[in-house]
């Protein structure tokens, strides 16, 4: 909603301007998004006089003018017809901003002649739409003075209206609210009611309404007009000042009233209407061609106005092209109506038509303002276009029900947190045109004005009082928290998320946050693509399905970074994945991707690529945090995501906690990857229960004796597992603290393929130093346990 200071002043005598007025308006809840001093435009421009005119050497239609600003002479190239020696005009030097053209003037060669600036037309200075010739100033303007000295100071403001304040979608509405705040009287004049001289041939019919509320009240009037031209300058300039283009006097008048008092009106060309005008619901599949020349298919949910033959208007939203006024119009029918805001909102939204009229109707216009709208328009049409007008045509009556709201003045303190006495509360409400019905006790009965349909409850009234008093008066009062602090603020899941993030960042992984919707092509396995998780109005197909896994985005991010020259990717994300549209179907996962080189390129060691055991160690690191890493089992995975021979599921107590492995070879194409990628994931919802705030640790006493380290070299079959061998060795004695694998290699022979595994076993001598006999006994047990698994000790 845009308005100028000068227009506002027509409704309210107000001295505050610029920053101060913006501050007051914003404090009222009418947030000023922008404001500008219009005179700033003219600050570099001077009153000048043309001293000499020469023909342009290279262009017939251009002239080279010499002009003076008193002590300086300038040269400009000008194409206007009205230049003559001795004429006073406005000179904009190079570097000045030309508001009507929205550019800053630069020194430029015009057909071989370069000027010092330009002479301006009214349109170029955004003073009017007159672009014919340069401004002609009379003798009252003194050469050499700043042009701005002669222009009345004015500001333009732009307000972001909240949806509840339809009453402020007009300049008078804003003035009214300001008057309430500043304790001032509105200066708006009442328009005189005019009766008319004949019966209108066009009548209203409202039989086709679905319910009375569709259009409870509608007024009309017929006009015969004498002049149908451009609007007078004052009207054109008013519209221009808030950025609207003048069209014709009839259209400009309705636009002016819409912005001035917030009353939408519509004018039909009466000669294009046959029979009576019927306000009714549209028939399904009825067609309507709007002023925008677009064809709209209507439904029974749309309210329209039709004559005997055709739909002539989409009520409250847009007129029809078949009945609009044009330069041949000689008779007019004017409409001033109240339409159901919900119907207007629904239709406007369904047909996607945004208009100034719809904007106001759907926010609720003043139901008592119909006569005023009719009278204001009658006065202007009669003054500007001449002719005669009919008696008014009326159907229905105002639907407005006077609502009395009771509120307790004591509750202001309870809700807002400081005291305002009852008298002041009443004064504020009266300033906002509320009428007080009863104020004998603390409970006050009041009635809001007809335009404040947004006021319905005690809290609404409290807000009115506190916003007029100013929110800055509300104190800061600390909460007295009487609850016991027994709640744990962070859930286990939250704590786990935070701790895992810190831990992964510590061991070199970078956290990503990606969109939760992905391409349906990246739902793997395919059978998990579900309609209930597909968006009906996605931004693109690439972002149209709620993800079932964190992997696709991690892999996409990997590929994108590789395409930018990154050679080592080590990412993780903690986020939601979905297997149904229910809350239970939303799961929190942690996923990792490792791809390309492990670590930096450095002179200290040879660079290698990430491999399976890198991702395995990350996963174990996370499980270690919950003390699970020694308790879990690995099982080969058959997921479509992984290379079947290089992947594992993590099992604990028969429950799958997650999985990891090398990306399945068939998926590299899908994700545009060239380097081998390793991915892993954990389902945090399944891990959270193992999160503990327990601080107590198991007791541990270090041994004073040397720990023994014994090396073994076993040969096992290629298909057996080193993990089983380690387990078997470990359980040989409770004194074995660590079993490390320090060499693994394949032994190829014709008979069979075997693997050689070298182990170091650390034996803790807890109470005494073992003698060789004891050590040999332990080693025999180890070898025997290994043998049971089919592992042979190498000679």
């Amino acid at each position, binding site marked *: 909603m845009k308005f100028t200071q000068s227009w506002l002043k027509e409704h309210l005598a107000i001295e505050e301007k610029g920053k101060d007025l913006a501050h007051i308006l914003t404090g009222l809840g009418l947030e000023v998004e922008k404001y500008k001093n219009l005179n700033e435009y003219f600050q570099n421009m001077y009153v000048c006089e043309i001293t000499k005119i020469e023909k342009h050497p290279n262009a017939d239609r251009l002239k080279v003018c010499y002009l003076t600003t008193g002590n300086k002479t300038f040269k400009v190239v000008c194409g206007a017809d009205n230049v003559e020696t001795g004429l006073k005009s406005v000179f904009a030097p190079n570097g000045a901003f030309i508001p009507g053209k929205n550019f800053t003037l630069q020194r430029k060669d015009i057909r071989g002649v370069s000027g010092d600036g330009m002479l301006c037309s009214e349109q170029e200075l955004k003073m009017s739409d007159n672009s014919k010739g340069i401004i002609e100033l009379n003798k009252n303007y003194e050469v050499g003075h700043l042009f701005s000295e002669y222009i009345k100071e004015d500001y333009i403001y732009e307000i972001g209206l909240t949806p509840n304040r339809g009453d402020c979608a007009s300049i008078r509405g804003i003035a009214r609210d300001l008057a309430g705040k500043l304790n001032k009287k509105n200066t708006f004049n009442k328009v005189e009611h005019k009766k008319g001289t004949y019966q209108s041939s066009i009548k209203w019919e409202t039989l086709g309404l679905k319910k009375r509320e569709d259009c409870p009240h509608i007024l009309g009037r017929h006009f015969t007009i004498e002049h149908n031209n451009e609007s007078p300058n004052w009207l054109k300039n008013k519209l221009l000042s808030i950025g609207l283009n003048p069209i014709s006097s009839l259209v400009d008048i309705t636009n002016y009233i819409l912005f001035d008092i917030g009353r939408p009106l519509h004018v039909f060309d009466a000669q294009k209407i046959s029979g009576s005008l019927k306000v009714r619901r549209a028939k399904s599949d009825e067609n309507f061609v709007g002023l925008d020349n677009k064809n709209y298919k209507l439904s029974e949910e749309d309210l329209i106005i039709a004559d005997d033959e055709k739909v002539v208007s989409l009520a409250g939203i847009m007129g029809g092209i078949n009945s609009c006024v044009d330069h041949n119009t000689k008779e007019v029918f004017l409409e001033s109506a109240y339409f159901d805001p919900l119907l207007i909102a629904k239709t406007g939204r369904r047909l996607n038509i945004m208009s100034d009229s719809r904007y106001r109707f759907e926010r609720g216009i003043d139901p008592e303002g119909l006569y005023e709208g009719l009278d204001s328009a009658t006065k202007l049409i009669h003054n500007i276009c001449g002719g005669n007008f009919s008696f008014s045509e009326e159907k229905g009556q105002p639907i407005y029900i006077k609502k009395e709201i009771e509120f307790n003045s004591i509750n202001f303190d309870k809700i807002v947190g400081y005291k305002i006495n009852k008298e002041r509360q009443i004064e504020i409400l009266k300033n906002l045109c509320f009428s007080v019905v009863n104020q004998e006790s603390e409970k006050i009965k009041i009635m809001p004005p007809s335009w404040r349909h947004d006021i319905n409850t005690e809290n*609404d009234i409290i807000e009115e009082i506190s916003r007029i008093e100013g929110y800055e008066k509300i104190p800061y009062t600390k909460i007295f928290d009487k609850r016991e602090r027994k709640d744990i603020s962070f859930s286990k899941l939250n704590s786990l998320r935070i701790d895992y993030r810190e831990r992964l960042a510590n061991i070199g992984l970078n956290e990503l946050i990606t969109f939760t919707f992905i391409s349906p092509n990246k739902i793997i396995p395919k059978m998990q693509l579900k309609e209930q998780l597909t968006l009906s109005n996605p931004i693109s197909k690439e972002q149209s399905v709620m993800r079932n896994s964190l992997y696709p985005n991690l892999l996409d991010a990997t590929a994108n970074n590789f395409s930018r020259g990154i050679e080592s990717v080590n990412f993780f994300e903690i986020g939601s994945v979905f297997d149904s549209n229910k*809350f239970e179907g939303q799961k929190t996962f942690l996923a990792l991707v490792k791809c390309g080189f492990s670590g930096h390129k450095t002179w200290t060691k040879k660079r290698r690529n990430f491999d399976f055991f890198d991702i395995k160690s990350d996963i174990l690191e996370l499980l270690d945090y919950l003390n699970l890493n020694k308790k879990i089992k690995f099982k080969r995975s058959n997921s479509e995501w992984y290379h079947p021979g290089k992947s594992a599921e993590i099992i604990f107590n028969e429950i799958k906690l997650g999985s990891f492995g090398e990306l399945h070879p068939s998926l590299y194409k899908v994700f545009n990857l060239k380097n081998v990628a390793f991915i892993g994931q954990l389902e945090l919802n399944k891990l959270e229960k193992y999160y503990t705030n327990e601080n107590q640790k198991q007791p541990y006493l270090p041994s004073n004796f040397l720990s023994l380290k014994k090396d073994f070299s076993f040969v096992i079959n290629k298909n057996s597992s080193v993990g089983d061998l380690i387990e078997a060795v470990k359980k040989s004695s409770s004194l074995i603290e660590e079993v490390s694998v320090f060499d693994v290699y394949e032994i190829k022979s014709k008979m069979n393929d075997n693997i050689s595994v070298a182990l170091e076993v650390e034996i803790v001598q807890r109470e005494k130093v073992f003698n060789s006999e004891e050590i040999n006994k332990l080693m025999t047990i180890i070898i025997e346990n290994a043998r049971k698994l089919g592992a042979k000790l190498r000679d």
Partner: protein
Amino acid sequence: MRIKYSGKKGLFTNLMKSLASLENDKKALLGKELNLTKKEIEKAFFSKKADLEKMELNKQLENEKIDISLPSRPFTRGGIHPLSRTIDELTSILTYQGFRIEEGPHIESEDNNFTALNIPESHPARQEHDTFYLKGNKKLLRTHTSPVQIRVMRKEPPPIKIIAPGTTYRCDDDATHSPMFHQIEGLFIDTNVSMANLKSIIRILLLEFFGKDISMRFRPSYFPFTEPSAEVDIGFSMEEENLKLGGNQNWLEVLGCGIVNPVVLENCGINSQKYSGFAFGLGVERFAMLKYGISDLRMFFENDFKWLKHYSFKANGFPSPIRGYR
């Protein structure tokens, strides 16, 4: 050489032996002199040896010299996403004020997201939420974290003091809008909760997060689910294209809040005569951008490695009020 002269079979030993053939007083005199000479020679000898060893060591150290300007062995350090860290900071401040963290689903019902929050179907406010709908039944991607309010109020009786950080969605995709973003919702319901309490909490939140020298203002606004409603702006100025927080030159909206509309309380079965409360909602991305000087919203979700390296946080532990949230 030492052995040749002063060893057991060395020159001096032989000379001493040869003294045995001389007469006694001559023997004593010569012997004494011979011993002195031997000691002197040995002394010179050891001193020379020490010199030589020192020279040798110096030579060795010189040879062992390395180029200390060579790059060190690099750590591979990861990072925490700036949005995660911002959520951590904000939730940390608020949990310290006694708020408990709650969560809700991304996929919501129209009732929780709109109707129960007093946003009926034709309300203009519903249009301002460009909503993603899912196929089939009328489920949607939540347009704000406010539905968590409804879920909690329908589940447990007051007093309620929760915050709900989470992912939110609107189908809007341009330079200043991302279709997915993050909010933090706050809700406090008890007997006698006022706007003044709300202002106090918001001030604590903003001062703790942005620092003590920021300025803020509360101005009336409108949300269907709060009445009275307010928006909170913080002051800033532009210094050579850089945004500097503080002052009252320009204002930037950071947060919406208000007294929970009694209609919403009643929708959730809470007696609005007995209880009142406040709610607030803030955009995490905006907080992160303002505090850390991130200018492009969309980069949060681009996941460019070098951008992440620049804007991510090292794992230095969870922010806490005691450490001043850094």
